[in-house]
């Protein structure tokens, strides 16, 4: 079954218009026109007339969940969510950054979404082999079935083949290329700290200049802050102007967390984030 992007776009417009007209929400987070068709932009529709500007095509990779925390608590928001995006919303609900009752989730079952910088289809690298939103109120289209179901951790094969020494060399080399533009943390739906630890100067946690020490401090700390929280949307890697494969580390940590605690991030609003929850039967592997 081929995805009809046009059909999803039409449904998005209709739902957005209805929700804004009836006043059920004051904001619809979806996608709008960019400077050309291959470069759509995240878009916030604020009234029924705005709904006509909504677009949806295979280049709509952005995870809209990152914008949720920008609006005052209690704002009624409808948000377009693909599979990974819905996990981000769930995780944000678990962390009490947004309330379930303030949100209307417009679920988009989809595959074949492309990275607008490279044209590469992102399904296999990110979104964890999921094609249907985990949580939604209104589903804009038919559920996707019959697509290849790959484990979200398949892409780790090469990485895991490296020993610790080789991994250290690998990350040192990758982080040396970092220019510290912070596009990764800004694109991340789970990076909402204000201020971010790296921007603090009392105490100062890491140097500002892009030398390997400051870069290591920034990335390794960010990696660990996202342990058990990364929902595998891959936005950090796509946002990076120098293509650092940040998703590899996030996936590795996610895999370890899942193995240890039997829970993946952002899969149920009933869950508690693994690292803030204590269960008597929790794995002790980390202490070994």
């Amino acid at each position: 079954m081929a995805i009809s992007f046009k059909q999803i776009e039409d449904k998005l417009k209709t739902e957005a218009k209805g929700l804004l007209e009836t006043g059920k929400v004051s904001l619809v987070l979806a996608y709008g026109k960019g400077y050309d068709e291959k470069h759509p932009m995240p878009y916030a529709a604020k009234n029924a007339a705005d709904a006509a500007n909504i677009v949806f095509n295979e280049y709509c990779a952005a995870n809209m969940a990152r914008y949720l925390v920008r609006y005052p608590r209690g704002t009624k928001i409808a948000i377009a969510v693909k599979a990974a995006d819905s996990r981000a919303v769930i995780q944000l609900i678990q962390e009490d950054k947004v309330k379930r009752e303030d949100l209307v989730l417009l679920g988009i079952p989809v595959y074949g979404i492309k990275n607008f910088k490279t044209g590469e289809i992102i399904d296999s690298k990110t979104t964890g082999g999921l094609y249907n939103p985990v949580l939604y109120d209104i589903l804009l289209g038919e559920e996707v079935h019959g697509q290849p179901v790959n484990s979200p951790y398949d892409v780790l094969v090469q990485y895991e083949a490296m020993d610790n020494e080789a991994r250290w060399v690998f990350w040192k080399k990758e982080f040396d290329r970092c220019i510290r533009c912070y596009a990764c943390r800004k694109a991340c739906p789970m990076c909402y700290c204000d201020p971010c630890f790296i921007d603090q100067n009392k105490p100062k946690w890491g140097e500002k200049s892009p030398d390997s020490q400051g870069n290591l401090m920034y990335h390794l700390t960010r990696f660990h802050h996202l342990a058990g929280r990364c929902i595998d949307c891959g936005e950090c890697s796509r946002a990076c102007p120098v293509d650092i494969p940040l998703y590899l580390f996030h996936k590795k940590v996610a895999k370890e967390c899942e193995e240890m605690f039997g829970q993946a991030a952002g899969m149920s609003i009933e869950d508690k984030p693994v690292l803030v929850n204590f269960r008597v039967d929790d794995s002790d592997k980390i202490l070994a």
Partner: protein
Amino acid sequence: MLKKTSISEISDLAAQLMGKGALIAPVREEAGFNFREISDAKQVDLNFYNTIISPKSAFFPQTEDFVRYQTGKDILEATPVELNIKPAFLFGVRPCDVKSFEIMDIHFTGTGAVDPYWQKRREAAAIFGYAFDLNTPADGADFYSTLGIGAADPEGSDVFMIKKGDDLLLKAITPKGEKLLAEMSVLSDATPDDLNYFDDTVAAGRAFKTRFTCVEAKPIAKKFEDLFGNTEFWEKVSNACLSCGACTFVCPTCYCFDICDETLFGKGTRRRVWDACMFTDFTLEASGHNPRTKVYQRLRQKVCHKYSYHIRKYGPISCVGCGRCTRACPVNIDIFSIVDEAMKA
């Protein structure tokens, strides 16, 4: 003086330049091309469109060490970091990027206060400009022709290079370029036909169009002054903005920096590091007050600096239409679309 070489023998030219100084040229890396100092002449590859990060870092590196010190020691024991300047050849710079150096000169040397780091590196460098390939359409993000910059403008370069089939034509534009080309024994003399081709390409480069139609600086500057207080407009155009620094770090005309003392185990360095007006802490004052807490205020600053304040204070638009910010933006914000929308507002 017009000279030529076969592109397949470009590494011979590179080797000869490396014998005279540092050769800085686009190098193919994982994510695309970037200007790097060449260590092996074979690295030089003219098969690029443009680099991810602008060539400004050749004169204004992201990190510049000023002074080294030890904590607890007297200030007189601190040692200034010597500026080791050697002749450099900045090879394969696109005409829009060459133009950016002229704009950056205003800030680093043109307003009375002279930045010795920029100035000395700039003086020691010869610029080998390189025309865009007119047989390939411009990248969708580019808009240099909108700002009056031709795809093959030789102005600002010491030597300007144009590809002609399998050959590379090199024309001396300045006396510095004349002297250099005369010393390059690997180059052969060009024919009258080559000279015609060169001149025709420069003219065709002026007619080569990127997206958008030509604009005038002053009406834009005025328009943005009028729009400054229109919060609705700025909130609308900044809705998607993540407030990261990708756009400013790849930009050839962004020159903001921070000066930091970075200390580890008692050993410290006072250094200059690129900063970005898109960062929350850029305007954070010691009192704790921050005049730009909102994303729209920061994006407004970036756009108005380039397209309004800069025009009013110095004359030119502080943008060369290279399209890097648009290509690097994780959410596809396009600065010229904002200008376009402002002019319609």
